[in-house]
């Protein structure tokens, strides 16, 4: 029984050490960042619309154990994956019947606010798939077919109004997850402002002006 005794002692000691470590304050990293940085360490990252919400709940719990994530990291990843989970026909119909109200978030003019926070949000929420330069080549881009949009492509912006971009951010489209449950309305406004300002120029030339500073 000495092995049990020694094992119990070592195990108890390790648990005490683990519990005594400082409590985390996860909050600076978004779910998509945690997803991109951790899930790709062992296997190809899977896009949110690969599974339905009920499946993601079980799979994420399984992966929290397997990948040894903290609870906060697991919750952040789950929130991100659920935001873009595959929907049943009924769920899609329900979502289409009650689209989130974009007008209540403000006019295009009022969206031109707080570009700095938009840059931070782009880094937190978009870089994993769209890449630092918006080319659709982020570390998680390989998970998507079709690949994430190239935000530098003039054609991407030519046919889209701010309201349409806002609508996609809120409700998702194709493999693009919905961010209505992940971000606050004013954060989505900031993101739209940043995307337009960063990836477009006045006069219709669609190029990247600067690198993100955050």
């Amino acid at each position, binding site marked *: 029984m000495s092995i049990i005794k020694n*094992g119990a002692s070592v195990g108890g000691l390790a648990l005490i050490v683990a519990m005594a470590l400082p409590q985390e304050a996860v909050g600076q990293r978004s779910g998509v960042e945690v997803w991109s940085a951790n899930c790709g360490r*062992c296997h190809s990252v*899977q896009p949110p619309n690969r599974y339905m919400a009920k499946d993601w709940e079980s799979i994420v719990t399984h992966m*929290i154990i397997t990948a040894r994530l903290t609870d906060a990291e697991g919750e952040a990843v789950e929130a991100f994956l659920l935001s873009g989970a595959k929907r049943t026909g009924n769920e899609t119909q329900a979502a289409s019947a009650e689209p989130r109200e974009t007008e209540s978030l403000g006019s295009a003019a009022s969206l031109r606010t707080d570009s700095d926070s938009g840059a931070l949000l782009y880094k937190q929420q978009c870089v994993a798939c769209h890449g630092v330069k918006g080319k659709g080549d982020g570390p998680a881009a390989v998970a998507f077919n079709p690949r994430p949009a190239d935000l530098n492509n003039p054609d991407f912006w030519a046919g889209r109004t701010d309201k349409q971009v806002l609508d996609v951010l809120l409700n998702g489209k194709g493999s693009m997850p919905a961010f209505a449950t992940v971000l606050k309305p004013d954060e989505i406004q900031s993101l739209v402002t940043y995307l337009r300002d960063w990836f477009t120029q006045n006069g219709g030339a669609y190029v990247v002006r600067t690198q993100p500073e955050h």
Partner: protein
Amino acid sequence: MTRRSLRVLLAAAVVVISGLTTPQSAAAQALTLTGYADFEALFENVNSDNSKFYFDNHHVNFIAVGKITGDLFAAAEVEYEHAGEEVALEYGYLGFTGIKDVRIIAGKFIVPFGRFNKDLHPTPVNKLPGRPLGFSEILPQTYNDVGLWVNGAKALNDDNRFVFDLFMVNGLLGGDGDGIRSLRDNDREKAEFGSDDNKAVGGRIGLEFPFVGFDIGGSVYTGKYAQDAADNSLNLTLVGVDASFQKEGFVLRGELVRASQEATGGKLTKTGGYLQASYMATPRFEPVVRFSARDMPSESSDASRLGIGLNYHIAAAGIVRVAYLLNMEKETFKKDNNGIVTQFTVFF
């Protein structure tokens, strides 16, 4: 700790877990079926008269995972290997997730020793077909066992964490000096080796820096595996270290395991390890190279292997791999046993 006090402790743990779990309606239960499968075309002993070419349906593994109720969770993997020739339960356990950052698991699980055995062996994850040398005869991958497992993570800051796995299992069991791989499957005390009250214990601790792309860990396993003619316990101890670094599609990974096995004829020391590099050169193509080696008590069993492969990612869930495996034994024991493997693997 006596056996009686251990039983009392375990019973108390079950009661505590039951009390912490909030019952929910049956409708809250969600079961998800996933898994993976692969097909291989193998050309073995390519340079010899004994060359052979054959197909293998190596794995069709079904994985069921689900939240039962509240903080209770269950997972199981049933594997059909070699076109169904071998059917086995890879793991099947109940988990309790109600303690912050800590999970308690009971049942049959893949023993959390190192990374290859626990996390990296499934074919959709293993970047080069087959096991590295040493991860069959020394760490007997896939090593699963029945017992208790406590696992968790504590954030060091926003980005990094300390992780730990602690386990107590029935343990590897067999005869004096037997090969380690043959010691597996002690799921309910192997009848031919009698009662084995001594449980094996071990675990892994690690530091993970996912946003830097670096992790490092150390593992240990120790337990009685046999008894000699005089009824003395013979112990087996495994120690291992693992590390990986990832940056923009490049992955460098290594792992080392060493076994100290007591035997009547003297201690048997066995060492094995691998170093693997891969790079996502394009969104689809990923070349891989892996060097592995084992140092065994018998010189005739020493070997090294260089594997060179190319992976084509059809999609996030499907990969075609082609690999050449160059096996190298010591000069006296040289064999013509190089191989070519083509593998198609998917997970669903």
